[in-house]
Protein backbone atom coordinates (compact mmCIF):
# COMPACT_ATOMS: atom_id res chain seq x y z
CA UNK A 1 0.00 0.00 0.00
CA UNK A 2 2.81 2.33 0.85
CA UNK A 3 4.01 2.33 -2.73
CA UNK A 4 0.61 3.38 -4.13
CA UNK A 5 0.62 6.92 -2.94
CA UNK A 6 4.06 7.76 -4.31
CA UNK A 7 3.04 6.17 -7.61
CA UNK A 8 -0.06 8.37 -7.83
CA UNK A 9 1.98 11.35 -6.77
CA UNK A 10 4.64 10.52 -9.31
CA UNK A 11 2.06 10.28 -12.05
CA UNK A 12 0.56 13.64 -11.08
CA UNK A 13 3.98 15.24 -10.97
CA UNK A 14 4.85 13.94 -14.41
CA UNK A 15 1.56 15.27 -15.76
CA UNK A 16 2.25 18.65 -14.18
CA UNK A 17 5.78 18.69 -15.56
CA UNK A 18 4.57 17.87 -19.07
CA UNK A 19 1.93 20.57 -18.86
CA UNK A 20 4.55 23.00 -17.55
CA UNK A 21 6.89 22.08 -20.37
CA UNK A 22 4.24 22.87 -22.95
CA UNK A 23 3.41 26.13 -21.22
CA UNK A 24 7.09 27.08 -21.53
CA UNK A 25 7.20 25.98 -25.17
CA UNK A 26 4.06 27.95 -25.97
CA UNK A 27 5.38 31.05 -24.24
CA UNK A 28 8.67 30.72 -26.10
CA UNK A 29 6.85 30.54 -29.41
CA UNK A 30 4.80 33.62 -28.61
CA UNK A 31 7.88 35.41 -27.28
CA UNK A 32 9.88 34.73 -30.42
CA UNK A 33 7.03 35.76 -32.70
CA UNK A 34 6.69 38.97 -30.74
CA UNK A 35 10.41 39.67 -31.01
CA UNK A 36 10.35 39.02 -34.72
CA UNK A 37 7.35 41.19 -35.46
CA UNK A 38 7.33 43.99 -32.87
CA UNK A 39 9.42 46.44 -34.86
CA UNK A 40 7.48 45.88 -38.05
CA UNK A 41 4.14 46.22 -36.31
CA UNK A 42 5.22 49.51 -34.75
CA UNK A 43 6.42 50.70 -38.14
CA UNK A 44 3.07 49.71 -39.70
CA UNK A 45 1.14 51.69 -37.12
CA UNK A 46 3.29 54.77 -37.64
CA UNK A 47 2.88 54.51 -41.40
CA UNK A 48 -0.88 54.10 -41.17
CA UNK A 49 -1.14 57.07 -38.84
CA UNK A 50 1.08 59.22 -41.01
CA UNK A 51 -0.88 58.20 -44.12
CA UNK A 52 -4.10 59.22 -42.36
CA UNK A 53 -2.63 62.58 -41.44
CA UNK A 54 -1.16 63.12 -44.90
CA UNK A 55 -4.54 62.44 -46.48
CA UNK A 56 -5.73 65.54 -44.65
CA UNK A 57 -2.63 67.66 -44.91
CA UNK A 58 -0.36 66.90 -47.90
CA UNK A 59 3.19 65.96 -46.99
CA UNK A 60 4.75 68.86 -48.89
CA UNK A 61 2.99 71.49 -46.80
CA UNK A 62 5.00 70.85 -43.66
CA UNK A 63 8.54 69.84 -42.84
CA UNK A 64 8.49 68.88 -39.17
CA UNK A 65 8.04 65.43 -37.68
CA UNK A 66 4.27 65.44 -37.32
CA UNK A 67 4.17 62.34 -35.14
CA UNK A 68 6.52 63.89 -32.59
CA UNK A 69 5.17 67.44 -32.54
CA UNK A 70 2.00 66.72 -30.60
CA UNK A 71 -0.06 68.04 -27.73
CA UNK A 72 -2.72 66.23 -25.75
CA UNK A 73 -5.68 68.41 -24.95
CA UNK A 74 -9.09 68.05 -23.38
CA UNK A 75 -11.99 70.02 -24.80
CA UNK A 76 -15.02 67.80 -24.18
CA UNK A 77 -17.55 70.56 -24.85
CA UNK A 78 -16.23 71.51 -28.26
CA UNK A 79 -14.60 68.32 -29.52
CA UNK A 80 -16.87 65.74 -27.91
CA UNK A 81 -14.18 63.83 -26.03
CA UNK A 82 -11.90 64.15 -23.04
CA UNK A 83 -8.77 63.23 -24.94
CA UNK A 84 -7.82 64.71 -28.27
CA UNK A 85 -4.35 64.67 -29.71
CA UNK A 86 -3.21 67.72 -31.64
CA UNK A 87 -0.57 67.25 -34.33
CA UNK A 88 1.11 70.55 -35.11
CA UNK A 89 2.31 71.00 -38.68
CA UNK A 90 5.04 73.57 -39.30
CA UNK A 91 7.01 74.74 -42.27
CA UNK A 92 10.36 76.41 -41.66
CA UNK A 93 9.36 76.53 -38.02
CA UNK A 94 6.19 78.51 -38.73
CA UNK A 95 2.88 76.88 -37.86
CA UNK A 96 0.76 76.02 -40.90
CA UNK A 97 -1.98 73.78 -39.56
CA UNK A 98 -3.10 71.47 -36.81
CA UNK A 99 -4.69 68.05 -37.04
CA UNK A 100 -7.12 67.01 -34.31
CA UNK A 101 -7.77 63.35 -33.61
CA UNK A 102 -10.18 62.19 -32.50
CA UNK A 103 -13.07 64.63 -32.65
CA UNK A 104 -16.30 62.87 -31.73
CA UNK A 105 -19.53 63.44 -33.64
CA UNK A 106 -22.92 62.07 -32.63
CA UNK A 107 -24.14 59.64 -35.26
CA UNK A 108 -27.32 57.65 -35.67
CA UNK A 109 -25.96 54.72 -33.69
CA UNK A 110 -23.32 56.12 -31.42
CA UNK A 111 -20.10 58.03 -31.65
CA UNK A 112 -18.34 58.80 -34.90
CA UNK A 113 -14.63 59.44 -34.44
CA UNK A 114 -13.22 61.99 -36.87
CA UNK A 115 -9.81 63.35 -37.69
CA UNK A 116 -9.92 67.01 -38.66
CA UNK A 117 -7.22 69.26 -40.05
CA UNK A 118 -7.52 73.02 -39.58
CA UNK A 119 -5.18 75.46 -41.31
CA UNK A 120 -3.88 78.53 -39.55
CA UNK A 121 -6.34 80.71 -41.51
CA UNK A 122 -9.23 78.82 -39.90
CA UNK A 123 -10.22 76.83 -42.99
CA UNK A 124 -10.71 73.08 -42.89
CA UNK A 125 -7.75 71.26 -44.43
CA UNK A 126 -9.78 68.08 -44.49
CA UNK A 127 -11.87 65.62 -42.53
CA UNK A 128 -11.86 61.82 -42.36
CA UNK A 129 -13.79 59.25 -40.40
CA UNK A 130 -11.65 57.12 -38.09
CA UNK A 131 -14.37 54.74 -36.98
CA UNK A 132 -18.13 54.62 -36.62
CA UNK A 133 -21.05 52.29 -36.05
CA UNK A 134 -23.43 53.69 -38.67
CA UNK A 135 -25.68 51.46 -40.74
CA UNK A 136 -23.79 49.75 -43.57
CA UNK A 137 -25.08 50.95 -46.91
CA UNK A 138 -26.70 54.08 -45.46
CA UNK A 139 -24.72 56.03 -42.88
CA UNK A 140 -21.37 54.56 -43.88
CA UNK A 141 -21.22 56.91 -46.87
CA UNK A 142 -19.32 59.22 -44.52
CA UNK A 143 -16.30 56.98 -45.19
CA UNK A 144 -14.17 58.36 -47.97
CA UNK A 145 -13.86 54.81 -49.38
CA UNK A 146 -17.62 54.70 -49.98
CA UNK A 147 -18.48 58.19 -51.11
CA UNK A 148 -16.81 61.52 -51.68
CA UNK A 149 -19.27 63.27 -49.39
CA UNK A 150 -16.78 64.09 -46.63
CA UNK A 151 -14.47 65.78 -49.14
CA UNK A 152 -17.14 68.48 -49.56
CA UNK A 153 -15.95 70.03 -46.31
CA UNK A 154 -12.38 70.57 -47.49
CA UNK A 155 -11.57 74.28 -47.67
CA UNK A 156 -14.76 75.34 -45.87
CA UNK A 157 -14.60 77.73 -42.95
CA UNK A 158 -16.88 79.70 -40.67
CA UNK A 159 -18.51 82.17 -43.04
CA UNK A 160 -18.14 79.88 -46.04
CA UNK A 161 -20.92 78.90 -46.28
CA UNK A 162 -22.43 81.69 -44.18
CA UNK A 163 -23.30 80.91 -40.59
CA UNK A 164 -26.99 80.31 -41.32
CA UNK A 165 -26.20 77.78 -44.06
CA UNK A 166 -24.00 75.47 -41.94
CA UNK A 167 -26.72 72.83 -42.06
CA UNK A 168 -27.61 69.84 -44.17
CA UNK A 169 -29.88 70.55 -47.14
CA UNK A 170 -32.94 69.11 -45.48
CA UNK A 171 -32.54 71.74 -42.75
CA UNK A 172 -32.15 74.44 -45.39
CA UNK A 173 -28.35 74.44 -45.38
CA UNK A 174 -25.52 74.02 -47.85
CA UNK A 175 -24.39 70.43 -47.20
CA UNK A 176 -25.78 67.31 -48.83
CA UNK A 177 -27.27 64.47 -46.86
CA UNK A 178 -27.59 60.93 -48.21
CA UNK A 179 -30.70 59.11 -49.28
CA UNK A 180 -32.08 57.39 -46.24
CA UNK A 181 -29.69 59.00 -43.75
CA UNK A 182 -29.92 62.54 -42.44
CA UNK A 183 -28.87 62.13 -38.83
CA UNK A 184 -25.39 60.86 -39.68
CA UNK A 185 -24.35 63.73 -42.00
CA UNK A 186 -25.98 66.23 -39.67
CA UNK A 187 -23.90 64.90 -36.77
CA UNK A 188 -20.64 65.01 -38.73
CA UNK A 189 -21.39 68.51 -40.00
CA UNK A 190 -22.13 69.77 -36.49
CA UNK A 191 -18.91 68.31 -35.11
CA UNK A 192 -16.88 70.01 -37.85
CA UNK A 193 -18.61 73.33 -37.22
CA UNK A 194 -18.02 72.96 -33.46
CA UNK A 195 -14.35 72.27 -34.05
CA UNK A 196 -13.97 75.31 -36.30
CA UNK A 197 -15.64 77.48 -33.64
CA UNK A 198 -13.33 76.03 -31.02
CA UNK A 199 -10.35 76.84 -33.23
CA UNK A 200 -11.49 80.43 -33.73
CA UNK A 201 -12.10 81.04 -30.03
CA UNK A 202 -9.34 79.07 -28.34
CA UNK A 203 -7.63 76.44 -30.47
CA UNK A 204 -5.59 78.78 -32.65
CA UNK A 205 -3.44 79.65 -29.64
CA UNK A 206 -2.05 76.13 -29.66
CA UNK A 207 -0.28 76.92 -32.92
CA UNK A 208 1.95 79.25 -30.97
CA UNK A 209 3.23 76.35 -28.90
CA UNK A 210 6.95 75.93 -29.23
CA UNK A 211 8.22 72.66 -30.62
CA UNK A 212 9.27 70.08 -28.08
CA UNK A 213 12.95 70.60 -28.80
CA UNK A 214 12.83 74.36 -28.31
CA UNK A 215 10.83 73.93 -25.16
CA UNK A 216 13.62 71.81 -23.71
CA UNK A 217 16.18 74.53 -24.28
CA UNK A 218 14.34 77.03 -22.06
Amino acid at each position, binding site marked *: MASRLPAALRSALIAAAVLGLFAVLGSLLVGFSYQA*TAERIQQNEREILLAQLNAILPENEYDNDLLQDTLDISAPQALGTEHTRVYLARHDGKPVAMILSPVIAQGYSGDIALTLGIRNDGSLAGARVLNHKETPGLGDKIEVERSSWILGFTGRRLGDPPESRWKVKRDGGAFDQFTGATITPRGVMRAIRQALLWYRDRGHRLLETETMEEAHHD
Partner: protein
Amino acid sequence: MTEVDYRKITLDGLWHNNQALVALLGLCPLMAVTNSTINGLTLGLATTAVLLLSNLSVSTIRHWVRAEIRLPVFVLLIASFVTATELVMNAWFHELYKILGIFVPLIVTNCTIIGRAEAFASRNPVPAAITDALAMGLGFTAVLTLLGALRELIGQGTLLSGAHLLFGEAARAWEFSAGNDFQGLLLAILPPGAFIGLGLLVALKNMIDKGVDMRAHRAEPSHCRTPPVISHS
Protein backbone atom coordinates in the same frame (compact mmCIF):
# COMPACT_ATOMS: atom_id res chain seq x y z
CA MET B 1 -2.04 -0.08 -37.82
CA THR B 2 -4.40 0.15 -40.75
CA GLU B 3 -3.50 1.79 -43.99
CA VAL B 4 -4.32 5.51 -44.02
CA ASP B 5 -7.00 6.38 -46.56
CA TYR B 6 -5.91 9.82 -47.75
CA ARG B 7 -8.67 10.01 -50.32
CA LYS B 8 -11.31 9.57 -47.65
CA ILE B 9 -9.65 12.10 -45.34
CA THR B 10 -9.54 14.67 -48.13
CA LEU B 11 -13.13 14.12 -49.25
CA ASP B 12 -14.37 14.23 -45.65
CA GLY B 13 -12.66 17.54 -45.05
CA LEU B 14 -13.71 19.19 -48.25
CA TRP B 15 -17.22 17.79 -48.52
CA HIS B 16 -18.74 14.98 -46.44
CA ASN B 17 -17.73 16.38 -43.07
CA ASN B 18 -17.18 19.99 -44.12
CA GLN B 19 -16.70 21.90 -40.88
CA ALA B 20 -18.92 24.79 -41.89
CA LEU B 21 -21.64 23.04 -43.90
CA VAL B 22 -21.98 19.73 -42.08
CA ALA B 23 -20.38 20.04 -38.65
CA LEU B 24 -21.60 23.68 -38.47
CA LEU B 25 -18.54 24.62 -36.43
CA GLY B 26 -16.76 27.95 -36.34
CA LEU B 27 -19.92 29.82 -37.24
CA CYS B 28 -19.12 32.93 -35.22
CA PRO B 29 -16.19 34.02 -37.42
CA LEU B 30 -17.93 32.59 -40.45
CA MET B 31 -20.90 34.87 -39.97
CA ALA B 32 -18.93 37.90 -38.91
CA VAL B 33 -16.23 38.21 -41.55
CA THR B 34 -17.89 36.95 -44.70
CA ASN B 35 -19.02 40.39 -45.83
CA SER B 36 -16.41 40.28 -48.58
CA THR B 37 -14.56 37.61 -50.54
CA ILE B 38 -11.12 38.67 -49.38
CA ASN B 39 -12.11 38.89 -45.73
CA GLY B 40 -13.54 35.39 -45.87
CA LEU B 41 -10.53 34.02 -47.72
CA THR B 42 -8.06 35.62 -45.31
CA LEU B 43 -9.73 34.33 -42.18
CA GLY B 44 -10.08 30.92 -43.81
CA LEU B 45 -6.36 30.79 -44.61
CA ALA B 46 -5.42 31.98 -41.12
CA THR B 47 -7.63 29.26 -39.64
CA THR B 48 -6.08 26.68 -41.96
CA ALA B 49 -2.58 27.74 -40.88
CA VAL B 50 -3.48 27.32 -37.21
CA LEU B 51 -5.20 24.01 -37.90
CA LEU B 52 -2.13 22.76 -39.73
CA LEU B 53 0.25 23.71 -36.92
CA SER B 54 -2.08 22.33 -34.30
CA ASN B 55 -2.71 18.98 -36.02
CA LEU B 56 0.98 18.62 -36.79
CA SER B 57 2.12 19.17 -33.22
CA VAL B 58 -0.72 17.25 -31.58
CA SER B 59 -0.04 14.26 -33.80
CA THR B 60 3.70 14.48 -33.09
CA ILE B 61 3.26 14.43 -29.32
CA ARG B 62 0.32 12.01 -29.23
CA HIS B 63 2.33 9.19 -27.59
CA TRP B 64 3.91 11.35 -24.91
CA VAL B 65 1.01 13.29 -23.52
CA ARG B 66 -1.16 11.29 -21.17
CA ALA B 67 -4.92 11.40 -21.38
CA GLU B 68 -5.59 13.48 -18.24
CA ILE B 69 -3.70 16.53 -19.44
CA ARG B 70 -4.35 16.08 -23.14
CA LEU B 71 -6.91 18.86 -23.49
CA PRO B 72 -5.01 21.55 -21.51
CA VAL B 73 -1.92 20.81 -23.59
CA PHE B 74 -3.90 21.12 -26.83
CA VAL B 75 -5.43 24.40 -25.67
CA LEU B 76 -2.00 25.76 -24.76
CA LEU B 77 -0.58 24.82 -28.13
CA ILE B 78 -3.52 26.21 -30.09
CA ALA B 79 -3.50 29.47 -28.13
CA SER B 80 0.24 29.90 -28.80
CA PHE B 81 -0.20 29.24 -32.52
CA VAL B 82 -3.09 31.67 -32.77
CA THR B 83 -1.14 34.39 -31.00
CA ALA B 84 1.84 33.83 -33.28
CA THR B 85 -0.43 33.92 -36.35
CA GLU B 86 -2.01 37.11 -35.09
CA LEU B 87 1.39 38.78 -34.69
CA VAL B 88 2.51 37.68 -38.14
CA MET B 89 -0.67 39.04 -39.71
CA ASN B 90 -0.31 42.29 -37.82
CA ALA B 91 3.22 42.64 -39.16
CA TRP B 92 2.76 41.60 -42.79
CA PHE B 93 -0.95 42.04 -43.53
CA HIS B 94 -1.56 45.00 -41.31
CA GLU B 95 -4.62 46.43 -43.03
CA LEU B 96 -6.37 43.08 -43.29
CA TYR B 97 -5.53 42.46 -39.67
CA LYS B 98 -7.25 45.73 -38.81
CA ILE B 99 -10.32 44.78 -40.82
CA LEU B 100 -10.66 41.30 -39.33
CA GLY B 101 -9.97 42.71 -35.87
CA ILE B 102 -11.11 40.55 -32.98
CA PHE B 103 -11.84 37.56 -35.23
CA VAL B 104 -8.17 36.74 -35.67
CA PRO B 105 -7.55 36.12 -31.94
CA LEU B 106 -10.95 34.43 -31.80
CA ILE B 107 -9.65 31.66 -34.07
CA VAL B 108 -8.59 30.10 -30.78
CA THR B 109 -12.24 29.48 -29.95
CA ASN B 110 -13.01 27.88 -33.30
CA CYS B 111 -14.24 24.44 -32.30
CA THR B 112 -12.93 22.98 -35.53
CA ILE B 113 -9.36 23.28 -34.29
CA ILE B 114 -9.68 21.60 -30.92
CA GLY B 115 -12.17 19.22 -32.50
CA ARG B 116 -9.73 18.00 -35.14
CA ALA B 117 -6.90 17.85 -32.59
CA GLU B 118 -8.96 15.67 -30.28
CA ALA B 119 -10.89 13.58 -32.80
CA PHE B 120 -8.23 13.05 -35.42
CA ALA B 121 -4.68 14.29 -34.84
CA SER B 122 -4.31 12.71 -31.40
CA ARG B 123 -5.13 9.28 -32.89
CA ASN B 124 -3.40 9.36 -36.25
CA PRO B 125 0.14 9.55 -37.63
CA VAL B 126 1.60 12.90 -38.72
CA PRO B 127 1.05 12.63 -42.51
CA ALA B 128 -2.62 11.75 -42.00
CA ALA B 129 -3.02 14.60 -39.48
CA ILE B 130 -1.52 17.08 -41.94
CA THR B 131 -3.81 15.87 -44.72
CA ASP B 132 -6.78 16.19 -42.41
CA ALA B 133 -5.77 19.74 -41.41
CA LEU B 134 -5.38 20.81 -45.03
CA ALA B 135 -8.65 19.23 -46.13
CA MET B 136 -10.68 20.55 -43.19
CA GLY B 137 -9.03 23.98 -43.40
CA LEU B 138 -9.54 24.35 -47.13
CA GLY B 139 -13.09 23.07 -46.89
CA PHE B 140 -13.78 25.76 -44.27
CA THR B 141 -11.93 28.39 -46.33
CA ALA B 142 -13.94 27.51 -49.43
CA VAL B 143 -17.24 28.07 -47.60
CA LEU B 144 -16.02 31.36 -46.11
CA THR B 145 -14.84 32.58 -49.49
CA LEU B 146 -17.98 31.49 -51.31
CA LEU B 147 -20.27 33.06 -48.73
CA GLY B 148 -18.13 36.21 -48.76
CA ALA B 149 -18.32 36.37 -52.56
CA LEU B 150 -22.10 35.93 -52.56
CA ARG B 151 -22.66 38.58 -49.92
CA GLU B 152 -20.22 41.01 -51.50
CA LEU B 153 -21.72 40.57 -54.96
CA ILE B 154 -25.34 40.88 -53.87
CA GLY B 155 -24.83 43.50 -51.20
CA GLN B 156 -22.23 45.72 -52.76
CA GLY B 157 -22.00 44.76 -56.42
CA THR B 158 -18.29 43.99 -56.26
CA LEU B 159 -16.06 40.93 -56.08
CA LEU B 160 -12.53 40.67 -54.70
CA SER B 161 -12.54 44.24 -53.44
CA GLY B 162 -9.45 44.78 -51.31
CA ALA B 163 -7.57 41.95 -53.04
CA HIS B 164 -4.41 44.09 -52.95
CA LEU B 165 -4.41 43.87 -49.14
CA LEU B 166 -3.74 40.15 -49.41
CA PHE B 167 -1.97 39.71 -52.75
CA GLY B 168 -0.07 42.97 -53.19
CA GLU B 169 -0.64 46.01 -55.39
CA ALA B 170 -0.85 44.01 -58.64
CA ALA B 171 -4.10 42.47 -57.42
CA ARG B 172 -5.87 45.83 -57.34
CA ALA B 173 -6.98 45.19 -60.92
CA TRP B 174 -8.74 41.94 -60.01
CA GLU B 175 -11.65 43.75 -58.47
CA PHE B 176 -14.89 43.29 -60.33
CA SER B 177 -17.50 45.99 -59.95
CA ALA B 178 -21.04 46.05 -61.23
CA GLY B 179 -20.72 49.82 -61.57
CA ASN B 180 -21.51 52.74 -59.32
CA ASP B 181 -25.20 52.61 -60.20
CA PHE B 182 -25.55 49.21 -58.58
CA GLN B 183 -27.59 49.77 -55.43
CA GLY B 184 -27.09 46.38 -53.84
CA LEU B 185 -29.29 44.47 -51.47
CA LEU B 186 -28.32 45.82 -48.09
CA LEU B 187 -29.60 42.71 -46.33
CA ALA B 188 -26.79 40.61 -47.81
CA ILE B 189 -24.10 42.68 -46.06
CA LEU B 190 -25.93 42.83 -42.73
CA PRO B 191 -25.67 39.90 -40.28
CA PRO B 192 -29.00 38.31 -41.33
CA GLY B 193 -27.51 37.99 -44.81
CA ALA B 194 -24.86 35.67 -43.37
CA PHE B 195 -27.48 33.39 -41.82
CA ILE B 196 -29.60 33.30 -44.95
CA GLY B 197 -26.56 32.78 -47.18
CA LEU B 198 -25.17 29.97 -45.03
CA GLY B 199 -28.61 28.35 -44.86
CA LEU B 200 -28.84 28.38 -48.64
CA LEU B 201 -25.34 26.89 -48.97
CA VAL B 202 -26.20 24.07 -46.53
CA ALA B 203 -29.41 23.41 -48.44
CA LEU B 204 -27.51 23.38 -51.73
CA LYS B 205 -25.02 20.86 -50.38
CA ASN B 206 -27.82 18.62 -49.12
CA MET B 207 -29.58 18.84 -52.45
CA ILE B 208 -26.45 17.81 -54.31
CA ASP B 209 -25.86 14.93 -51.90
CA LYS B 210 -29.43 13.77 -52.29
CA GLY B 211 -29.16 13.93 -56.07
CA VAL B 212 -26.00 11.85 -56.01
CA ASP B 213 -27.58 9.34 -53.63
CA MET B 214 -30.67 8.96 -55.76
CA ARG B 215 -28.67 8.39 -58.88
CA ALA B 216 -26.58 5.73 -57.14
CA HIS B 217 -29.77 4.18 -55.84
CA ARG B 218 -31.31 3.98 -59.31
CA ALA B 219 -28.17 2.58 -60.87
CA GLU B 220 -27.94 -0.14 -58.26
CA PRO B 221 -31.42 -1.02 -57.01
CA SER B 222 -30.31 -4.08 -55.04
CA HIS B 223 -27.88 -2.01 -53.00
CA CYS B 224 -30.08 -0.69 -50.20
CA ARG B 225 -27.49 1.09 -48.12
CA THR B 226 -29.17 4.48 -48.21
CA PRO B 227 -32.13 5.31 -46.01
CA PRO B 228 -35.45 5.87 -47.78
CA VAL B 229 -35.67 9.25 -49.44
CA ILE B 230 -37.93 11.61 -47.56
CA SER B 231 -40.71 12.63 -49.88
CA HIS B 232 -41.21 16.28 -50.50
CA SER B 233 -44.26 17.80 -52.07
